[in-house]
């Protein structure tokens, strides 16, 4: 399980820049960033090296930031890698709230997934042979 940083941002010019600059100034290095957007606001989800420090820095700069427990699962970086993982989810009857993927240098891809009960899912996936970060 991983601590993902989630930030509530208004759809306004310059907000994402201000957010990333705040993290840069706090010496936080990001591995992944995605944005879920609605008409009025966006949720920015970040995987980084220092989630607690990131949240502290963001809150000090008046951002609304929280951490959320997500699953980060290593899959082989080849066609069908994600599909196999999702089949496992289906077999385990696990629902996914949202997800995104990024590739690491070592030839593996990392799939980040939000599920209702991350502990349970984590244990089940480990049992099915996956490396859960």
């Amino acid at each position, binding site marked *: 399980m991983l601590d*993902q940083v*989630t930030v*509530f*941002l*208004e759809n306004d010019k310059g*907000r994402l820049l201000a957010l990333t600059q705040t993290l840069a100034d706090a010496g936080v290095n990001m591995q992944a960033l995605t944005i*879920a957007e*609605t008409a*009025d*606001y966006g*949720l920015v*989800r970040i995987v980084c090296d220092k989630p607690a420090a990131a949240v502290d820095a963001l*809150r000090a700069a*008046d*951002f*609304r930031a*929280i951490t*959320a427990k997500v699953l980060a699962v290593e899959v082989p970086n080849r066609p069908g890698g994600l599909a196999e993982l999702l089949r496992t989810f289906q077999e385990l009857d696990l629902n996914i*709230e*949202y997800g995104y993927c990024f590739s690491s240098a070592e030839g593996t891809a990392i799939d980040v997934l*939000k599920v209702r009960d991350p502990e349970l899912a984590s244990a089940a996936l480990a049992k099915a042979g996956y490396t859960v970060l």
Partner: protein
Amino acid sequence: MTRQQDIVTMPHDQLEAIQLEGIKKTVIACYENVPFYHELFSNVGFDPYAVESLDDLAKAPFTTKQDLRDNYPLKMFAVPKKDVREIHMSSGTTGIATVGGYTEHDLKIWGDCFARGIEYADGGEDDVCHVCYGYGLFTGGLGAHYGGVAAGCMTIPMSAGNTERQIRVMRDMGSTILCCTPSYAMYLADTAIAMGLDPKKDFHLRVGIHGAEAFSDNFRSELEKKLGYKVLDVYGLTETMGPGVAIECMEQNGLHLAEDHFYAEIIDPETGEVLPDGEWGELVITTVDREATPVVRYRTRDITRIIPGQCACGRTHRRIDRLHGRTDDMLIIRGVNVFPSQIEDVMKTFPQISSWYQIELTRKNHLDVVTLKVEPNPDFDFDEVRAIEQLQRDIQGRLKTALSVGLRVRIVEPKSIPRSEGKAVRVVDLRGDDQ
């Protein structure tokens, strides 16, 4: 025993005798010295020399803000200019300003009235009174200042703004009494906390005397929790004097009117009929002994009621309830009357959001659209869009039930609703730009 103890505990029939004597003089002074009142009384056949009881005053016509505006700048003065020591003016955001004049006597009673709030809190010579209402034409700053001085406090004329300096002075001088708007008190507290201070330890505040805008009980308890003091609501308006017309005592159960200086009636704003104690309506004030700018039956537009019965503190001056809004800041949304206080009441049932809000009125296809902007609290788990949408829907649902009209709720980033240094801007009306 505090300075004005005998006055604030005097039997009510004695107070009424003082009121009747004062009002007799006031209506005659108005009639003889203010052409506006001469004409007004003559037009409706009100004889100022025939007032024999307080009930007779109900025969007098009302005075409105528009009347005061029409007589700008000095035509409402009942004394020659040489007897006037000071003037104040209302902000005039909605048109021409109204002017209040003060003789030496008027200034003294003003100080005494505001000082009562300090004395209700057992304040006096050992206290440091920190005034960050704006000094100037606005009555807040100097009214609180005169009160602080009259009560014997070391009084600091900070005026508004420069929040970091306010905080530094508050710490260094050991301020014990804070006079400002409730929204500015919250802003001070939040700024101090953001600076790494603990206001409960680093400040020495005992009492806050906050007014000039309505605030909810929830807002009050949040302030008290953050600053570790007790908040007393103060009421006043330029047209009758300024802050100090009524102030809460430590019971925090209604604001004691300064009845030796102000005679209050509650009327039905539609019919003008005087309502019995306990009923909500518009507050109407007649000054008892104001010299420079006396007013007869001034319609304040503020909605309150006289709280029946005597206060647990033992003081005899009757209490008005905390304001329930104004007859003129009432929002009419698609034909439905909505008070901001009703919106606040709904908001405080949601722990996920803070008590800051702003109402934005826009018009789309000739229909009013009301958007309530609220800020999430730090512990609200918003990781999924669904959680935010659900919260917005829940607030909307509860508002719909409470107000009988649909509002759109929008969660916005913290601190994106402007923190005012004066009155909080609760309603932004953009309906002029119809699209």
